[in-house]
C-alpha cells in the first residue's frame, strides 16, 4: 500500500509539472503581451522595452519558465488586474464558499443518486426505474446555468420559498472562523446563522448537483444490475443470508467500486459547474470571481484559478485511487 501511494504521488507530480508547462505556453501564446495591457496605447518603443526588461520578458524562455514555476510554488500568482489585490488572497477569501457549495452538491448527488440507482436496478422496468433513467437523461442534458436560473425564477421569485442570492441574508451578524458559514455557525453556536446559510445553499446546491446526481444514478444502476447477475450473489442467496446482508456486503460493496471512481472525477468538474451556479445566485465564491475575471480578461486571476482546479482534480483522483486500493483487494495486490 505504501509503494502504491508513493507511485501515485510521483505520477501526480509529473501531471502537475506538465500542467504548468501547458499554462506557461498558453500565457506566452496570448496575443498582445502584458506590456501592451499595462502601458497606454501611445507609449514609445523605449518605454515598452524598459517594461519588458523590468518584467523579465527579455530573459531566455526557460529562465522565464523556472521563474514562473518558482512563483507558483510560492503561491504568488501576481495581482488581479481588476481589483489590484493579490490573487492568492482573493482566491483564499472565496474558496470556502465554493467548497461549501460543492460539498453540499456532492452530498445531495451521492445521497440521492446511490439509493435511487440501486432501487432502479432492483425494480428494473418499473415506473421508478423509468423515472430514474429518463430523469437522469434530462439531468445530464440540462445546462447548469439554465437549471439554476429556472430554479431561481420558480422557487425564489415566484414562490418565494428560497432566497434569491448570497450566502446569508444581508445584515445577518456572524462570526467568521473557517469561512464555511454552516460549520462556523455550528462552532460558535449561532444556530440562526446555520439555518440561514442552509436555506441559501439549497437552490445553488441542487442546481450544481443535477449533473453529478444524474451520472451517479446511472452508474449505480448499471453497476448494481451487473453485480446482481454475478455468481457470488447467487452463492450469498444459497447461504440463506438475510436480504439486507446480501445487499450491503455482496451487492453494494462490489457495485460501488465504479461509482467511487466516477465520484472522484465529478468532484473535480464540480468547480467548473460552480462558476456558473455562483454567478446566477451571486454566491460570492471563486466561481463568481472567475466569471468576472473571464469577462474582464484578468489572465493572472484565471491562471490562479486553473491551477487550483488542477491541483484539486489531481489530489481528488489520488484520494479515489487510494480508496480504490482500500476497497478492492485485487488492486492492492497488483500494485
Amino acid at each position: 500500500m505504501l509503494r502504491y501511494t508513493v507511485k501515485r504521488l510521483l505520477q501526480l507530480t509529473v501531471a502537475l509539472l506538465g500542467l504548468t508547462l501547458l499554462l506557461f505556453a498558453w500565457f506566452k501564446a496570448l496575443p498582445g503581451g502584458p506590456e501592451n495591457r499595462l502601458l497606454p496605447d501611445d507609449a514609445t518603443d523605449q518605454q515598452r522595452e524598459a517594461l519588458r526588461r523590468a518584467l523579465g520578458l527579455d530573459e531566455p524562455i526557460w529562465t522565464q519558465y523556472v521563474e514562473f514555476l518558482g512563483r507558483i510554488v510560492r503561491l504568488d500568482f501576481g495581482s488581479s488586474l481588476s481589483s489590484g489585490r493579490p490573487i492568492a488572497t482573493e482566491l483564499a477569501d472565496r474558496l470556502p464558499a465554493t467548497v461549501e457549495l460543492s460539498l453540499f452538491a456532492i452530498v445531495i448527488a451521492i445521497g440521492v443518486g446511490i439509493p435511487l440507482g440501486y432501487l432502479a436496478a432492483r425494480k428494473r422496468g418499473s415506473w421508478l426505474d423509468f423515472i430514474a433513467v429518463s430523469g437522469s437523461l434530462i439531468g445530464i442534458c440540462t445546462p447548469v446555468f439554465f437549471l439554476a436560473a429556472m430554479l431561481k425564477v420558480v422557487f425564489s421569485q415566484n414562490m418565494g420559498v428560497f432566497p434569491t442570492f448570497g450566502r446569508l441574508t444581508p445584515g445577518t451578524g456572524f462570526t467568521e472562523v473557517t469561512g464555511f458559514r454552516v460549520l462556523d455557525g455550528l462552532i460558535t453556536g449561532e444556530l440562526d446563522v446555520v439555518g440561514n446559510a442552509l436555506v441559501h445553499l439549497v437552490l445553488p446546491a441542487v442546481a450544481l448537483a443535477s449533473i453529478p446526481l444524474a451520472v451517479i444514478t446511472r452508474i449505480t444502476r448499471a453497476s448494481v444490475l451487473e453485480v446482481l447477475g454475478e455468481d457470488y450473489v447467487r452463492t450469498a442467496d444459497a447461504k440463506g443470508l438475510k436480504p439486507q446482508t446480501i445487499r450491503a456486503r455482496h451487492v453494494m460493496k462490489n457495485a460501488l467500486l465504479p461509482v467511487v471512481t466516477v465520484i472522484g472525477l465529478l468532484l473535480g468538474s464540480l468547480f467548473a459547474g460552480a462558476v456558473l451556479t455562483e454567478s446566477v445566485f451571486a454566491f460570492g465564491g471563486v466561481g463568481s470571481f472567475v466569471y468576472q475575471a473571464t469577462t474582464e480578461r484578468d489572465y493572472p486571476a484565471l491562471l490562479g484559478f486553473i491551477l487550483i482546479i488542477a491541483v484539486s482534480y489531481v489530489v481528488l483522483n489520488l484520494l479515489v485511487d487510494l480508496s480504490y486500493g482500500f476497497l478492492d483487494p485485487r488492486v492492492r495486490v497488483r500494485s
Partner: protein
Amino acid sequence: MALLEVEDLRVSFGETRAVDGVDFQVDEGQVVGLVGESGCGKSVTSLAIMGLLPRRAASVAGAARYDGVDLFSLPRGEMRRLRGPDLAMVFQDPLSSLNPVVQIGRQITEVLERHRGMRGEAARKEAVHLLDRVGIPDPARRLGEYPHQLSGGMRQRVLIAISVACAPRLLIADEPTTALDVTIQAQILELLKDLVDSEGTALLMITHDLGVVAGLCDEVNVLYSGRVVESAPARDLFARPTHPYTVGLLNSIPRLDLPIHEPLRPIRGSIADVIGWNDGCAFAPRCDRVAEECVAGEPPLIGAAHMHRCVRAEEVA
C-alpha cells in the same frame, strides 16, 4: 418418505421449456446423480429446488417436497431459513462464486452467524475448523485472504466448507469439479464423499461425467431434454444401460481397457433447443435405433427399480 421428492418439475423461461416434467427422489443419506449433457436441464433443476431461479424470468411448476414440505409454496423468508442448515449448494465455478472483495473468513462466518448464532471468536474458531476439515493448509492464515489469492481447488474447498458449515441434510453439488484440473477433481470428489459419509448428508450430484457418477452415486437419473430417460441404482445402470442415450453416453467415454485404435463413438448431433416430447421421443433425431414407434407418441417411463423411457428397450437389449 424420501428426504427430497421432486414430482413433475417443470421450468420454463418464457416459451422455452428447460425442464419438462422431472421426477426423482433422494433418500436420507443417499447419493443421487443427475446426469446429462449441457442443456438437458440439470442445473435448472437444482436451482429450482434451491429456489434460486430468477423469479421474474423463470416459471416453476410441479413440486419439490423436502421432508414432506413443498418448497415451492414456502414463503421466501422460510425458504431462506432452510438454505444453509437444511439445503446447501456447491457451485460450478469456484472463482466467480466467491465474493472477490470479502475475506474468505467473513464469507464463512456470515453463515455461522446467520444460522448457528455464532459470533466473534467462536465463529472464527469454527471457520478455522471448517477450513481444516476441507483440507486447507494453514487455515487460520487463509481466513484473512481474498478469493483471488487462492488456487481453483482451494476456492472449491472454501465453497464446500461454506456449504457444509451448518451440517445440511441435503447437499446439492452442481458440477463441482468441471472447472478444475483432473488431479484436483479426484481430491474434491473424495472430500465430498468423506463429508457426506461422515455426516450422513444426502448428496444430489449434478454432472455430465459418468465417471464421477460411477465412483460416488447410489442412484442415477439420466436426464435428456428436460426429462428423466433412465433411472436406476448406479451398479445396475452401468451393468445394463437400457436407454440408447445412456448407452451413447457410456460409449463416448474413452476407456483404457479397449484397444487403443478403437474409435470413440460419440452421440451424433446436439441437444435440441426447443424440447419436444409431445411428438414422440426427443432423442429420436439422434438415435441410431430409431423406429416408427419411437415418434408415434410420448414414450412413458417404464419399469420399477430400473426405469427407462424407451419404447424399443426390449429390442435394443
